[in-house]
């Protein structure tokens, strides 16, 4: 009897696992399609009237945080800089991790000349700048002033991992 149940238990698990994987693939698929529709209709100014209803419908389906993210990416195409959310997410470097001689390569000021230095580090290359200085630069460019690394090229990775964690929308589940 217990044997039979155990067997069933295992079998159920296996079945549900495959089902989840399928769901997962479908979700990713729909997500990509939605994103594309969103992109198309948000940016197409010629058919503004016709789009309103569809965009409204889409807006109700897509979580607000994602809408903002996608809209920000749309703005991105015109501005050539990094989105504000990216700049805001740059990790702070604490005062004790700053050497007495290291300076910001944009304003040429030694970080520790300021009693309360607000210094951030770029992803990947770890180059450090005053938050104030790098914010202005990254609002117009996506490159590190020192090594010319495209700072946004790493954002894709961060995004997809975040997306997987946030997968639980509750609408396709």
């Amino acid at each position, binding site marked *: 009897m217990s044997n039979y149940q155990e067997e069933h238990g295992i079998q159920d698990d296996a079945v549900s696992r495959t089902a989840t994987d399928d769901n997962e693939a479908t979700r990713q698929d729909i997500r990509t399609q939605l994103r594309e529709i969103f992109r198309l209709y948000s940016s197409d100014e010629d058919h503004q009237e016709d789009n309103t209803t569809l965009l409204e419908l889409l807006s109700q389906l897509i979580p607000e945080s994602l809408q903002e993210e996608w809209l920000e990416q749309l703005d991105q195409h015109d501005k050539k800089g990094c989105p504000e959310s990216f700049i805001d997410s740059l990790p702070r470097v604490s005062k004790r991790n700053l050497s007495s001689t290291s300076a910001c*390569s*944009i*304003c*040429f*000021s030694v970080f520790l000349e300021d009693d309360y230095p607000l210094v951030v580090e770029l992803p990947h290359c770890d180059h450090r700048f005053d938050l104030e*200085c790098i914010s202005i*630069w990254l609002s117009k460019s996506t*490159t590190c*002033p*020192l090594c010319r690394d495209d700072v946004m090229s790493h954002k894709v990775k961060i995004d997809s991992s975040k997306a997987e964690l946030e997968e639980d929308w509750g609408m396709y589940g």
Partner: protein
Amino acid sequence: MSRIVKEYKKIKKVLEGHGEAFENLIVQLAPVNEYDLLSWKATIRGPSDTPYNGFSIGLTIKIPSDYPISPPMVKFEPYKMPHCNVNFQTGEICLDILTRQHWSPAWDLLHVLKAIEQLLQEPVPESPLNVDIANILKEGDRTAYTGLVRYYFCGGT
């Protein structure tokens, strides 16, 4: 303290002999007026392995208000400058690092002069502002190239 003030201090130090890398290149690099650091004059030596050898070459530099986010505006002036990437009449320079797209705020005026030295050493005839000189360079006639540059320098038009 603004960035250009810091640069001015650094430039003074370098030109007083603490930076040998620039000794062969820079004759002068200073603001036109001590109280207005947005307008500069520079004089550089023509690099030894080029037709410009032996000539002193003048430049003017304008610092934009949002420098170093925007690049400085650099022109050859007052001399008419014979170079395939320089507009002979206006002194305008075609140099990628001076464009918004390629400029980095980590660069300073010393970097800019180094880049201009390199442009004198390695002209780019593929993107010319002076077609006559670009054509001679493309033909690979080094003697004619040197001759033409020197002819212009000595007052030819």
